[in-house]
């Protein structure tokens, strides 16, 4: 039974564990690895769901695990395990060595781990200072009660999720760091119904490393946003398929840049040969109106980090400056395999994934125009006020659902339309972003990719795309 594997003294998350980690890293190097990295994780999560006027689900979860990665040349082997005993970790690293079929012909020198960089010292009390289940339940119930004010709303939901994660990162280049991360999200969803008409509305709000953020959340403002969106769309007609100019709203409108362009600037895409931008460094890839940034340092933003999952402090990376490609988003493997310097972007969902180059807070910088100036510049187009999800295929083609859209006629917003999908390719669309507004805002989200689902923010000011294919009926 698994209980026996814990007889050996193993990792204690309240301790530094330096000696044990050095022993495991030395073991990996002695067997011929060029590089060894250990990622240890202890989690304590909870989610709460309120439906209509009742708490219908409270789901706590907790766990521990280790992800051990070794490199030999540019190859890597990764083993994850829940067994954090000394024996379990030694066994995992031996398995990683065996997978790569390494012979210990030359043994790399290991100077030991540096003094620990402790990013968690002022975060130890967070678990005690976050809202209690009672406080969460009360606020969510207030939110769903508020959503009742519109009688056509048939389904009302409020949800909260807290992810607390303590990590220790140690590697054979001496990297030794520990951190505590706290992410909280709260979402509201409604479905409105009237005869054959149906619409839905949803908004999600999120913060990182801000224990009190949920307590300060303005649930009435959030509920009003959701209600406005669902009611405006309830009787909307389907949009006609066409090619037109569009204005994309700020905040979550940035999801298109994130998906359609941001992913193509990750070094994992260069490694795979799936980005058209691989050889475009210092070349023009977008309209000169576009400057785009990926950073992990904005206080409280959902994609911010004190230290990435490979032990590097995040930097602010200007990806595109005035339309010119300036930088790629890189992790350790990306630097090794593509030559692009690490940017503090090595991220993973949890211990069971190897870190990969991933976005953090990614946004198009603000320009000079007002939202009204963008809209008034269009005689026949579409205003995408709220975006749904989307995806990008292996050839770079993207598509995104428009949750809340309005036709633009002669420079004015007119009737709401539903069922629109934006379709295009980054290389074609980026040069068509001709105007950027002055109202940059960020929105939290989750990004799923090679190393699992990670917290990010997307963002932009209002932007105008001169022409794009709109899927419809």
């Amino acid at each position, binding site marked *: *039974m698994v*209980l026996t594997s814990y007889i050996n003294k193993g990792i204690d998350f309240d301790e530094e564990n330096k000696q044990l980690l050095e022993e495991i890293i030395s073991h990996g190097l002695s067997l011929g690895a060029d590089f060894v990295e250990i990622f240890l994780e202890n989690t304590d999560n909870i989610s709460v*769901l309120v439906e209509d006027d009742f708490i219908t689900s409270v789901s706590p979860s907790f766990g521990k695990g280790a992800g051990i990665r070794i490199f030999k040349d540019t190859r890597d082997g990764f083993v994850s395990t829940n067994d954090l005993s000394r024996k379990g970790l030694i066994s995992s690293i031996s398995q990683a060595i065996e997978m790569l079929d390494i012979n210990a012909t030359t043994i790399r020198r290991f100077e030991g781990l540096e003094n620990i960089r402790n990013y968690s010292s002022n975060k130890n009390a967070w678990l005690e200072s976050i809202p209690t289940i009672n406080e969460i339940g009360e606020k969510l119930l207030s939110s769903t009660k508020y959503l009742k004010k519109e009688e056509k709303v048939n*389904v009302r939901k409020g949800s909260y999720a807290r992810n607390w994660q303590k990590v220790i990162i140690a590697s054979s280049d001496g990297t030794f760091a520990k951190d505590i991360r706290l992410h909280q999200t709260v979402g509201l969803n409604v479905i409105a119904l009237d005869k054959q008409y149906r619409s*839905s509305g949803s908004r999600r709000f999120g913060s990182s490393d801000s224990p009190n953020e949920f307590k300060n959340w303005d649930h009435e403002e959030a509920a009003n946003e959701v209600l406005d969106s669902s009611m405006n769309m309830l009787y909307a007609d389907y949009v006609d398929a066409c090619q037109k100019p569009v204005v994309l709203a700020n905040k979550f409108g940035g999801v298109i840049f994130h998906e359609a362009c941001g992913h193509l600037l990750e070094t994992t895409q260069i490694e795979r040969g799936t980005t058209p931008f691989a050889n475009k460094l210092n070349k023009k890839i977008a309209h000169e109106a576009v400057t785009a940034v990926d950073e992990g340092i904005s206080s409280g933003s959902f994609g911010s980090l004190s230290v990435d999952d490979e032990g590097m402090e995040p930097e602010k990376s200007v990806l595109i400056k005035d339309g010119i490609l300036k930088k790629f988003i890189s992790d350790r493997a990306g630097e090794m395999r593509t030559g692009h310097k690490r940017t503090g972007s090595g991220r993973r969902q949890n211990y069971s994934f190897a870190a990969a180059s991933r976005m953090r807070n990614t946004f198009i910088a603000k320009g000079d125009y007002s939202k009204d100036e963008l809209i008034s510049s269009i005689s026949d187009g579409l205003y995408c006020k709220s975006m749904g*999800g989307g995806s990008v295929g292996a050839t770079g083609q993207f598509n995104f659902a428009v949750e809340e859209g309005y036709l633009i006629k002669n420079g004015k917003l007119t009737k709401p339309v539903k069922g629109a999908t934006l379709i295009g390719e980054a290389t074609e669309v980026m040069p068509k972003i001709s105007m950027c507004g002055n109202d940059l805002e960020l929105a939290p989200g989750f990004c799923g990719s090679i190393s699992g689902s990670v917290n990010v923010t997307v963002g932009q000011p209002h932007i105008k795309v001169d022409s794009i294919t709109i899927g419809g009926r």
Partner: protein
Amino acid sequence: MDLKEISNFITSSAKSLNIKKWDFGASFSNDFSVQVDKGIAKQLKASQKQVLTLRVWNKKNLVGITTTSDLSENGLKKALYQANLASDYGNKNELTDFSPLAKDPIKDIKQAKRSPAGIKKLLETLRFAESELLKKHSAIKTIPYNGLSESFYKRIYANSEGAQRSYAKSQAAIYLYARAEENNRKPRSSGSVKIGYGLEDIDINSCIDEAAEKTISHLNYSAIETGKYKVCFSPESFLTLMNAFSSIFNARSIIDGVSISNKDSIGEMIANPLLNVFDDGLHEKNISSAPFDGEGTPTQKLCLINNGILENFIHSESTARIFKTKPTGHAGLGSKVSVSTDWIVVERSEKVLSNDNDLNHKDYLGKYIYVEELNAIHAGVKASQGSFSLPFDGWLYEGGKRTSIEAATVAGDFKTLLKEIINIEKKQHLTTSGISPHIWVKELSITGDA
């Protein structure tokens, strides 16, 4: 890993917390996977994972839950303690109980359980597959998405009334997605996935051939005009759509108001009478079959649509109680128990209808769109509203000739689509997510780039 040991420990620990009623589900897995890049091993992965979900009932018969990967004695005690605390917030309006079928006999699914092939064998096989696929056509320059994995897992369920169930399985899977590009043309990408009980059961060559054929055949593409077209769905694409809208059969979704069905929909004609749909988790071709669900209810074959009429919903214990019926073996295990389909089987019924019934994708000479594969399901399906707008890989057929479509989306309402089915071909095809024939639909909106 021993079901009895965990059960005994939870029994004794629960007593000390005065918890009299509990159940748990757990899974234990060992997974191995490889990826390659032009013959070089890119990332080799192994993982040992264990997770246990524990439910306890308090004195007011309210349920609390905790999930953990820490199966040490301390971890299990903490899980009991946390679940007990969470039970204070149990749902008073929808009480949950053990499944009344949790001790019923389960079917012996008699599936092959393979031994690990090992990382080296996986790597050797994938290198071969990548190399062969690259040789298939000069335009295929890379196989950017590839992987070969094998997984060995065990699932258990037990409760305080003595139900105890377990099963162990092995599974292997390969995927090859090729990227092809010709001068001054846009790159094209397509691929294939194959699964089996073990590496030895996977037809690697057919995966290579299928990935090559799909990718190469789309190299000579054209944009199409936006408009309404007659559509033929491939078995894969129709099953994708069926699964995306499976809330139509889902009692949980109906209770929650997020389904386009309602409590009175049973008996309603929702599709062309040619359509029969079953959920058959125990089908002999279902590699991922499980003999019981998250609540320990035996898996069973269930008719969902019979001659176009909605026949049954899928249930957990609590939704079955609300609908005054029995659970159907489709439950997860959670604070709020989810319900989902297992393995959809679509077939043509015996009903004979209109004169379009002889439509066959192999010899029809009229103009139509063939939807080979639907993409971006999570973004383009609004299950609660019944609408979809999805990009797809496919073909324009006219006069027996086919042209690959550059980029397009197909949009419509699912209920309308079911009613506007004009033919269901006789031959069923096995896919990784179920079984279906080709399905013809009278007309759908297609957005093209021309």
